[in-house]
């Protein structure tokens, strides 16, 4: 019986699931409020009820009912109902260029996220940070997973990107006490913002050179401490630069990082990094990791491979930093310290090394878990580490390691199994 049910759902394509989820989030917007009153909930369960349940356990039944009525039932029913037309459309799109189909799926996904996060500002903020965490995790995975080194410099790269992008937009588009009046009309701001992010990314890529040149001359664990020293140096450098606010930080960045912008950059990052790691140039990082001498003998330019991958990863960390600064609209150097490092490392190793899927899973699950367990206060910092230790013991390379991210497989139509017809 159960297997039969699961078999039936096996023919539901991704598009149908997305349509189901879209209906669910619409439903939540329409009937969410009356339903919460009916179920005596204080407000709409923001993060799938985790916060409510942990604060007042006796609301568990009503929260579960809410989740079933709003999410589980509509998603399953609608996804199942539209599976046939969805399969047909997916098949039609699949026969054309892949990017059209991919963009349509992403559009649906964005719509869902947008409507879902419309309910509360807290949801939106959590969502943005989660998306940014995906960029950071994926870029660190390039170094620690794909290349097999141990780098501690990501907070430093993020800081460079955050300050680079912030200075860019504050100088050009904002009247700021540090940098004086805006040089360009503010209306251009959102359009020039990508340039600011890229500017920040390039600054951290240049910073990466400082780490890469001494550490890739020799092999061994030196990258670990050189990169750690780099993080300390960047933090301390920013603390000492008064014109960018010193230890007090830099605030009132223009509000350029709306959900759409963050979403687009995350998609871009996943797409480009995924392209890279599947190319021969990207696979060369794996070859360097698994056997550098063999890589050399097979004509692979190992030094260039390491340099490029490291700077590429730093670039994305910088972009993530820039987005982060504009979401929070405030940065200070202490954000980018050891704590941030532990957080990012945890996401990479939890999700899985050498895997785009893994990084997405790691970033999303740990970001959401971090928010969802907030009511537990101190104990959150016992539960999350314990969870990670368990994952490390039972799956030492992380949950979904060494798995290629294949867009085609994801969006292809699911055909009905032969024996069912």
């Amino acid at each position, binding site marked *: 019986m159960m297997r039969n049910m699961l078999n039936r759902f096996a023919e539901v394509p991704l598009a149908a699931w997305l349509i189901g989820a879209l209906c669910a989030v619409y439903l939540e917007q329409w009937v969410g409020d009356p339903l919460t009153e009916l179920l005596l909930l204080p407000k709409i369960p923001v993060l799938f009820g985790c916060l409510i349940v942990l604060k007042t356990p006796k609301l568990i039944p009503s929260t579960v009912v809410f989740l079933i009525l709003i999410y589980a039932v509509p998603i399953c029913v609608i996804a199942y109902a539209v599976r046939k037309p969805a399969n047909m459309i997916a098949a039609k799109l699949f026969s054309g260029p892949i990017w059209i189909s991919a963009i349509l799926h992403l559009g649906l996904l964005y719509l869902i996220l947008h409507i879902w996060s419309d309910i509360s500002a807290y949801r939106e903020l959590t969502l943005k940070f989660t998306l940014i965490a995906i960029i950071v995790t994926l870029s660190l995975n390039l170094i620690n997973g794909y290349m097999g080194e141990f780098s501690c410099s990501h907070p430093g790269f993020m800081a460079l990107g955050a300050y680079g992008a912030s200075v860019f937009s504050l100088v050009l588009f904002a009247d700021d006490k540090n940098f004086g009046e805006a040089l360009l009309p503010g209306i251009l701001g959102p359009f020039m913002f990508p340039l600011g992010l890229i500017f920040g990314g390039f600054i951290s890529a240049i910073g990466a050179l400082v780490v890469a040149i001494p550490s890739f001359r020799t*092999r061994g664990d030196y990258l670990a401490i050189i990169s750690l020293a780099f993080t300390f140096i960047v933090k301390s450098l920013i603390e000492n630069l008064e014109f960018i606010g010193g230890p007090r930080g830099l605030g009132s960045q223009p509000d350029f990082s709306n959900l759409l912008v963050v979403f687009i950059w995350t998609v871009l990052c996943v797409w480009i990094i995924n392209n890279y790691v599947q190319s021969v140039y990207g696979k060369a990082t794996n070859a360097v*990791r698994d056997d550098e001498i063999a890589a050399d003998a097979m004509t692979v330019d190992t030094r260039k491979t390491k340099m490029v991958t490291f700077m590429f990863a730093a670039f994305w960390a910088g972009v993530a930093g820039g987005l982060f600064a504009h979401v929070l609209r405030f940065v200070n150097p202490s954000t980018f310290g050891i704590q941030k490092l532990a957080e990012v490392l945890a996401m990479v190793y939890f999700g899985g090394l050498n895997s785009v899927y893994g990084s997405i899973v790691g970033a999303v699950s740990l970001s959401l878990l971090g928010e969802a367990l907030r009511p537990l206060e101190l104990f959150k910092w016992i539960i999350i580490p314990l969870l990670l230790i368990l994952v490390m013991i039972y799956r030492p390379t992380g949950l979904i390691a060494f798995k290629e991210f294949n867009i085609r497989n994801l969006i292809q139509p699911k055909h009905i199994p032969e024996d069912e017809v």
Partner: protein
Amino acid sequence: MTYFLQNVVNALQWGSFYALIALGYSMVYSILMLFNFAHGDIFMVGSYIGFGVAAALVALSAAGVVVLPSWLIFTLTILVTMILTAMLGMAVERVGYRPLRDAPRASAAITGLMIGIILETGNLAILGARRVRFPDLIESVTYEIGGVYVTNKKIMIVVVSLLFMVAMQYFVSKTKWGMAMRAMAYDYLVVPLMGVSINSIARLTFAIGSALAAVAGILYGIAYPVLDPYMGVLFGWKAFVAAILGGRGSIMGATLAGFLLGFIEIFVAMVFPSTLRDLIAYSIILLILVFRPHGFFGEPYSAKLRL
């Protein structure tokens, strides 16, 4: 000149902490090829255990149950704390590292990092946010030698640290267990063939490293009596730097690198505004690594993180 000498004294004390912690770090790193990111927090817990033991002994003494002279309290505190912290170290090895013996090294580093966070949080959960004050075990006496002020505490801290470092050097180079450790650092697979189990060596390594961190914790508590749960974090990462800077497989190297780090930090703060301390200190370390890429005493080796 006196100002300079005064800073030498301070740097010796500050470097002692780094050296002792880096020593334990370096042992785990050299022998087991692991980054023990929990080490800084073991230092912190050692300091707290030391505080507990010392406070208990002082209270017993004050209540007149057993009247002990202060030097005996100090010695007992060190011994008991070392034993207790060594047990903690062994527990950490058992829970966080042994199951990951065949896993990538980085995974073990992550469990270490997580155990560290659990230790910090556990401390906060048990003792609350208030800071505790380490009892004054030693009456502070200040000597003035040619304008340089030296307290008996500082002398004692440096002497005790040096004693432990010399003892360690002796242990590793002269005893049977020490030899087994060095053999393991040299070749992982040969040790079981000699009839010594990897597990017992690993346990011993963690026990000794943690005991040394406990000594550092007590000495730190004597010099800077206010303890807090996050005090181990920075020490841990800096000792990590010192351990690798010293070179793999070199206990002397880690000790020297610890002192060097202490001297650099103190002297940078002496010459430049203190806000520039980290910036300049780590830039110097970066430069050192550019010119001595294998650390001070380490041999060139190539060890990738096994995946």
